[in-house]
């Protein structure tokens, strides 16, 4: 049975067509992946289904009957549930309160918390979704928060569950647990729509895949009849190299040395603990870790945005521990910040101005900017780094996420740096742009630059880095040249992993 059918759905934002006459069928009881690059219109389409948006044209059929879903309340009544990419949870309320709000069990007109906790407990037992029923959201892990989100929709008796990029915030172990849950839900007769831009996940979990590109459906295929390569081609519209070609490079002298740095926070807590890193010419050193384990602090310390409490940072045999950011940049440091909108760009500035940011002195004469030189330089950078834009007078906030990132990377790599601090360089960027960025980073390696790659993407680290350090709670807990994905995952989740859990995990990986 076709549980959902979209017929000619169109959604516009101003002149921009986010969904262009979408036709799509979801079968009852399947796991259906919606695959596409960022901005392909996947989430928009699901928001149309969930009543958060109202489409301009088209019809949605639910259980073969036409339905007008104009608000989430109605969607919930019709058995739809959505697990949003950014969790819709209230930090200072308990898990139970978050789950029941809107459909509270009552006793004498008041909320019956005891009954509510029992109900939550029951559903969580049924689906093996362990949560502490009386704990505040702010005190539980991201994985547990996601389980609360799933319980929220199950509590509302959803038959169709929409997951919007659910793995983006999870560790590999948590991803495995999530996939187990998804299979259980499917076995229990639920229909699952899974939004993602990751090929591997799609191949792993789905029954069928629909690929979206630029707001249009490219095609729907059975997962068993397709390959990652074909899906990538459908997504991007051209051949994509999924594996980067890494050539050997000549490793030279030390360029950056981080010597025993520590950082204490506001409440005297250790944010970084005795970190030692040395990076040589032509070498990529990776930092792996679940976000929030000190990567951001390390990035800020090296970039000069934060003062270290103790230790030294040496760039090209000069001590830059106390040097301000400007001096660091002059000495050859380039920084691709992890938060491009906050630190990488001025969103309301033109592309040209963004490209000379930090380097504006080279384009100045007698205190005035040299507009012609700037335009010429910008044109080169935009072309070389394939930033797709209308003109260089556009403001940066008009670019898509991937193009913004390419702009930042273009600026940082065009100044002939000695050392590149690349933090989450492909965060929230689609396959095509990832390929491009990876190739550029490898090109820098070939040109004998030293590179520190801080990333939450294991694939990225494993394919690019020459050496990987694992950071956990502000400390480097392991360093090695070759890791398997599973090893890294375990180390990232904390250094002490009980043997039993390890075995169970290995079994599960083999079974998958």
């Amino acid at each position, binding site marked *: 049975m076709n549980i959902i059918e979209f017929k000619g759905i169109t959604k516009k934002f101003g002149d921009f067509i986010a969904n262009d006459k979408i036709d799509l069928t979801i079968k009852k009881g399947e796991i259906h992946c919606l695959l596409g690059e960022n901005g392909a219109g996947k989430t928009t389409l699901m928001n149309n289904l969930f009543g958060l948006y*109202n489409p301009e044209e088209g019809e949605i059929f639910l259980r073969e009957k036409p339905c007008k879903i104009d608000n989430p309340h109605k969607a*919930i009544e019709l058995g739809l549930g959505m697990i949003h990419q950014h969790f*819709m949870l209230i930090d200072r309320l308990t898990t139970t309160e978050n789950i029941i*709000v809107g459909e509270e069990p009552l006793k004498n007109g008041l909320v019956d918390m005891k009954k509510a906790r029992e109900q939550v407990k029951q559903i969580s037992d049924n689906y093996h979704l362990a949560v502490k029923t009386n704990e505040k959201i702010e005190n539980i892990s991201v994985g547990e928060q996601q389980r609360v989100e799933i319980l*929220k929709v199950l509590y509302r008796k959803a038959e169709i569950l929409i997951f919007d990029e659910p793995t983006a915030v999870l560790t590999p172990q948590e991803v495995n647990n999530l996939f187990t849950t998804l299979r259980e839900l499917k076995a229990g007769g639920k229909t699952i729509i899974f939004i993602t831009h990751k090929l591997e996940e799609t191949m792993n979990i789905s029954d069928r895949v629909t690929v979206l590109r630029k707001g249009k459906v490219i095609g729907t295929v059975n997962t068993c009849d397709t390959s990652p390569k074909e899906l990538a081609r459908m997504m991007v519209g051209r051949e994509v190299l999924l594996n980067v070609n890494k050539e050997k490079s000549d490793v030279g002298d030390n360029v950056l040395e981080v010597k025993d740095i520590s950082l204490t926070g506001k409440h005297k807590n250790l944010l970084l603990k005795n970190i030692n890193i040395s990076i040589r010419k032509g070498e990529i050193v990776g930092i792996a870790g679940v976000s929030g384990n000190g990567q951001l602090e390390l990035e800020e310390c090296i970039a000069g945005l934060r003062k270290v409490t103790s230790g030294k940072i040496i760039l090209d045999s000069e001590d830059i521990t106390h040097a301000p950011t400007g001096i660091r940049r002059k000495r050859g440091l380039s920084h691709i910040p992890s938060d491009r909108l906050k630190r990488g760009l001025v969103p309301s500035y033109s592309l040209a101005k963004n490209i000379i940011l930090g380097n504006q002195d080279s384009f100045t004469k007698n205190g005035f900017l040299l507009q012609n030189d700037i335009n010429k330089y910008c044109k080169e950078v935009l072309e070389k780094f394939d930033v797709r834009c209308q003109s260089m007078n556009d403001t940066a906030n008009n670019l898509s996420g991937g193009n913004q990132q390419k702009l930042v990377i273009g600026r940082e790599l065009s100044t002939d740096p000695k050392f590149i601090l690349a933090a989450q360089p492909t965060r929230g960027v689609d396959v095509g742009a990832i390929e491009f960025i990876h190739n550029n980073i490898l090109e820098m390696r070939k040109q004998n630059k030293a590179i520190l790659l801080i990333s939450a993407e294991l694939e990225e680290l494993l394919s690019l880095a020459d050496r990987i350090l694992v950071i956990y709670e502000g400390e480097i807990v392991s360093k090695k040249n070759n890791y398997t994905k599973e090893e890294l995952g375990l180390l990232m989740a904390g250094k002490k992993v009980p043997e039993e859990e390890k075995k169970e995990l290995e079994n599960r990986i083999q079974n998958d």
Partner: protein
Amino acid sequence: MQEILEVIFNINTFSAAIRISVPLVFAAIGGVFSERAGIINLGLEGMLLTGAFAGVLGSYLTGNPYIGILFAIMGGALIGFIFALFTIKFEANHVVAGVGLNILMLGITTWLMQILWDSRGTSVNVTGLSEITIPILSSIPILGKLFGSHNILAYLMFIVVIFSWIILFKTPFGLRLRVVGEYQKAADTLGIKIRKIQYTSLIFSGVLCGLGGAYLSLGHLNWFSMNMSAGRGYMALAANIFGGWNPLGAFGASYLFAYTDALQMRMQALNLNVPNEIIQMIPYILTILVLAGAMIRSRPPAGLGKHYKTNR
């Protein structure tokens, strides 16, 4: 020194503080409901003033102060609704809308006084609320002095404090209200009717301020005067913050402010060889100190002051 201590621990000071606290408590709980729903409410001041005026108007027209209370409730509700229109429907900046409302109501009440009573300063005298003495309670030594004899609004205040707390923390409406104030989008995705909840809480907020205002004019003085609220709305907003956006806390904080005010008045009568101006400063200095301490730890609703736009 002993004189001062006697004033500080005098039962009459505590009793006077209850009277002073009534309008503050009503307005502060009005602030709790509004801010828990995500709307910064500087308009408390204007709402109090409206209540005070409407109360006197009702009593003036009918000769019955209880009809005056009804007028105050309706006036407060109307202003609450208007404030809601501006902040929710027209997405005005909450602070600007609140201050605007205060200036507007100051102007309107003064103008109406001119028309009705031909005076910009004060209204004519109207019938005020009489005190109700509770038989047995009033004869118990200390409790009798504190709670034995008040007008109806003061008794209502105690009921409002308790019921507000129950509504906010024990009922489905309260839970939804808190979710709306924290994260409107999350509330929306749960199918909660955000607008309905916000309008309801702001109208309720107006009603409470109306009652507080009626106490000012009908309970205290039996007339209305220009700018009668005299900053109590702002103080109530501070009490709401200091009380942690909780009706019980708001009551405690309002009572503390009221107590220092009562203390200050009594200390002036003591001839302490200290300029009266210094003594008059005590409540304000205490407010500043307490608030400075409270602000560091306080945690407002996460969605306070934010607008949420749907794409429907």
